[in-house]
């Protein structure tokens, strides 16, 4: 297993912790070789995009959209400014991987963004980093300074006539800015409220210009794909599920960790690598892709592989790769109430079903948790969730609704017990 780990975004992880984020360290693992080759040879961008298509790299932020296809939507030859934007607004509960990419291997993200800029015809990039990430931002800014000083980014790079400028933009605490059009609004100095689509960002994005937005891990994967080939990357995973992926294994697990392992690794191996369920308890449930995806009972997960298609078959989604482990003895009503509060707090307020509905969900769950639930409350929860999903501009509404429906489906008896008896079925009073 070990030889398959940390082959892409974490390829500097084994180096001395004091210097592994520096330009010198990154160069020692082959960093910037691809970018320098591009500057020298100026290959046809379509060739590079084809390599990405071969790799089956899918968006690592949660949606899983094929990256090569996304880049091919850009009107590369159309005159006018175009932008590449990196979404480092990591905030999906359970997800803590992009933070570590910026802390441990910031140069690979810079190289990935520069290559992306070349492929889509963008000479300017922004890395939108969530406001709380002071330390990762300092690391990334330090790397930017090094890259500028080495002439790797800037104007007319190595006399190639190619320009690429890259800037950081710090957020200020809003989960919704991880939604790509909300992120663009935020970059434009506004509230982060998602835009209607179409137009899609590839037609009218940042400042109205064609824009591609990719997740940190997605962009940081690009230099290695070009180095080792799309075929190599694909073979690390499974067909349609190319590559290794970062998994954040958190919750009630013995050794919470980030793992960069091949897509398609069995969940039971992932759990074992994280030391098993904490305190030697039995596995109750898993939220396999960040808080927005449906919960899966533990026994089903133990038979499931960690890739987009296998997890979809198990009734959930791979999402951002945030694997939240829930142990036996944990009250699922309490977990769901926590999730509901998150979405109620983070709803941007633009669409009525989400703004009102997320508050309803949180209040009804609070009532049940406090022992004041009514028999009709479960139908009410289901009804409200059903009236949010699919009726909003962005996916936050669906993200709030899906956990409710899945928790009720798999753990209804816990909710019923709490309503009937006023106390939890599983937790000691």
């Amino acid at each position, binding site marked *: 297993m070990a030889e398959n780990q940390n082959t892409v975004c974490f390829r500097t992880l084994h180096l001395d912790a004091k210097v592994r984020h520096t330009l010198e360290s990154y160069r020692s693992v082959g960093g910037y070789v691809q970018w320098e080759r591009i500057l020298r040879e100026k290959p046809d961008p379509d060739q590079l995009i084809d390599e990405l298509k071969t790799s089956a790299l899918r968006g690592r932020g949660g949606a899983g959209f094929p990256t090569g296809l996304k880049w091919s939507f850009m009107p590369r030859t159309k005159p006018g*400014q175009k932008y590449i934007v990196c979404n480092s607004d*990591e*905030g*999906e*509960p*359970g*997800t*803590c991987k*992009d*933070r570590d990419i910026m802390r441990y291997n910031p140069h690979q993200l810079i190289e990935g963004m520069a290559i992306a800029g070349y492929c889509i015809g963008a000479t300017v990039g922004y890395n939108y980093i*969530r*406001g*709380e*990430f*002071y*330390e990762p931002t300092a690391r990334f800014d330090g790397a930017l300074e090094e890259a500028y000083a080495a002439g790797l980014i800037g104007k007319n790079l190595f006399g190639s006539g190619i320009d690429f400028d890259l*800037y950081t*933009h*710090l*957020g*200020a*605490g*809003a*989960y919704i800015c991880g939604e790509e059009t909300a992120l663009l*609004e*935020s*970059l*434009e*100095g*506004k*509230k*982060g409220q998602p*835009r*209607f689509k179409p137009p899609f960002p590839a037609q*009218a994005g940042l*400042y*109205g210009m064609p824009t591609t937005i990719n997740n940190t891990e997605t962009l940081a994967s690009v230099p290695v794909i070009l180095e080792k080939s799309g075929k190599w990357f694909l073979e690390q995973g499974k067909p349609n599920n190319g590559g290794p992926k970062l998994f*954040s*294994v*958190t*919750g*009630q697990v013995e050794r*919470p*960790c*980030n793992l960069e392992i091949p897509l398609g690794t069995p969940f039971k191996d992932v759990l074992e690598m994280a030391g098993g369920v904490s305190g030697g308890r039995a596995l109750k449930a898993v*939220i396999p892709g960040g*808080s927005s995806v449906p919960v899966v009972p533990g026994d089903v997960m133990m038979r499931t592989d960690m890739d987009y298609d296998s997890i979809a078959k198990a009734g959930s989604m791979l999402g951002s790769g*945030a694997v*939240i*482990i*829930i142990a036996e003895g944990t009250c699922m009503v*309490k*977990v769901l109430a*926590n*999730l509901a509060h*998150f979405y109620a*707090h*983070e709803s*941007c307020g633009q669409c009525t079903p989400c703004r009102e509905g997320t508050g309803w969900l949180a209040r009804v769950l609070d009532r049940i948790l406090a022992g004041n639930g009514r028999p009709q409350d479960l139908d009410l929860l289901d009804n409200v969730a059903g009236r949010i999903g699919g009726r909003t*501009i962005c996916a936050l509404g669906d993200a709030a609704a899906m956990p409710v429906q899945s928790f009720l489906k798999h753990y209804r008896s816990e909710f019923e017990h709490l309503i009937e008896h006023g106390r939890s079925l599983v937790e000691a009073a």
Partner: protein
Amino acid sequence: MSFRNTPLAVIHDVDKETLLTPELRAEIDKHVAKYPPEWKQSAVMPALTLVQDHNGGWLSRELMDQVAAYLDMPETAVYEVATFYAMYDLEPVGRHKVCVCNSVSCMLGGAEELMHHIEKKYNVAPGGTTADGKLTFKEFECLGACRHAPAVMVDKAYHECVTPEAIDKIIDDLD
């Protein structure tokens, strides 16, 4: 159209040299330079963060108005931003901000006990400030440090796997 792709530029009748401080203006200018010249408003978030840090951790209406004037924005556009994002405080705060993550991984890792401890020991409810003005206690949504649950952000620094004893030590060490 659900969005406008033109800046809201309004010119305020004010000498910009009188706004904020020369140091803040210089810092804000560094951010303004990142964006197209007509999109100065893109710098509103970093500008508000800088001004807030300079003002003891919160933004007064007067300061927001000065940011608006400096960036050629309508005041209301600045208020919209300042009220939307969780990291801006619009009322005076303690000397330090202690933000405990209570999203799902941290909750499963003991964030609730940690918050009860802080509430009880320092006699402060989430969102409140201690009587001595030392700290403002906040319940925060996911800090993105889920493998180190429970995570706490104190001012600008993350602390990880924080126990009640550890938070006491952290708070003791603050001025």
